[in-house]
């Protein structure tokens, strides 16, 4: 059973290669049994419903689990009611649980 954790710490407006990460996650979704994209730091910025990238996030969330770090959201004043459809909110303990899962492959960007 293949499981992946992709941690995105950047936003697509600052780092153009974030698009590649979204594409990688979408591609992995075709083959992986379970894939979580965990957004931290500025990686949570596109989760705002009004963001130009929100559509991509929602599309990704239809294929894989997309999770936004609660701490990073709070730091940036992004409320749960402002999130794009499909985005779940979790704390760093959830991230640690995913890291500790047997056999899960992890990528930080």
């Amino acid at each position, binding site marked *: 059973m293949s499981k992946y954790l992709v941690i995105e*710490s950047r936003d697509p407006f600052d780092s153009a290669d974030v698009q590649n990460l979204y594409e990688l996650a979408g591609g992995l979704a075709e083959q992986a049994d379970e894939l979580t994209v965990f957004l*931290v730091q500025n990686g949570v910025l596109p989760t705002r419903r009004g963001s130009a990238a929100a559509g991509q996030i929602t599309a990704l969330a239809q294929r894989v689990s997309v999770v936004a770090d609660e701490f990073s959201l709070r730091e940036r004043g992004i409320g749960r009611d402002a999130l794009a459809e499909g985005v779940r909110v979790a704390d*760093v303990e959830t*991230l640690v649980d995913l*890291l500790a899962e047997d056999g899960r492959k992890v990528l930080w960007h």
Partner: protein
Amino acid sequence: MATITIALMDPPYETETTTTAFRIIDAAVRKGHSVNVFAYEGAVNLTMADQAPHPDPVKGTSVEEQDHPTTKDWIAAMFKAADGRLDWVNCGLCVDERGAGNWIEGPRRGAPKDFVEWVEASDQTLVIPTK
């Protein structure tokens, strides 16, 4: 419980990544996991014992009022919380280059070889690169 190896490269006070890495390490040890940290390049400065908080002359606040956190104090707190389940290696070559050998109690000197051995022995490895 798992053993998680984390490689850090960012120096202190530069990026939010340091905060995120500290949150992960702290949460992991509090959950009972064992954590290995390999500090490479600028990250060897995270544990320097001579770090000192400062006042804010713009706001006119004192050191005490400012309560400015230092990375070495955060790391010392994580060692305490880990109760023996946190191992921290500072890359020796990186330390020598930076003159960063005076560090707090807890970390030890090592080499990339230690990181390779940790990777082989750990349940998980998280590499957090610089931008």
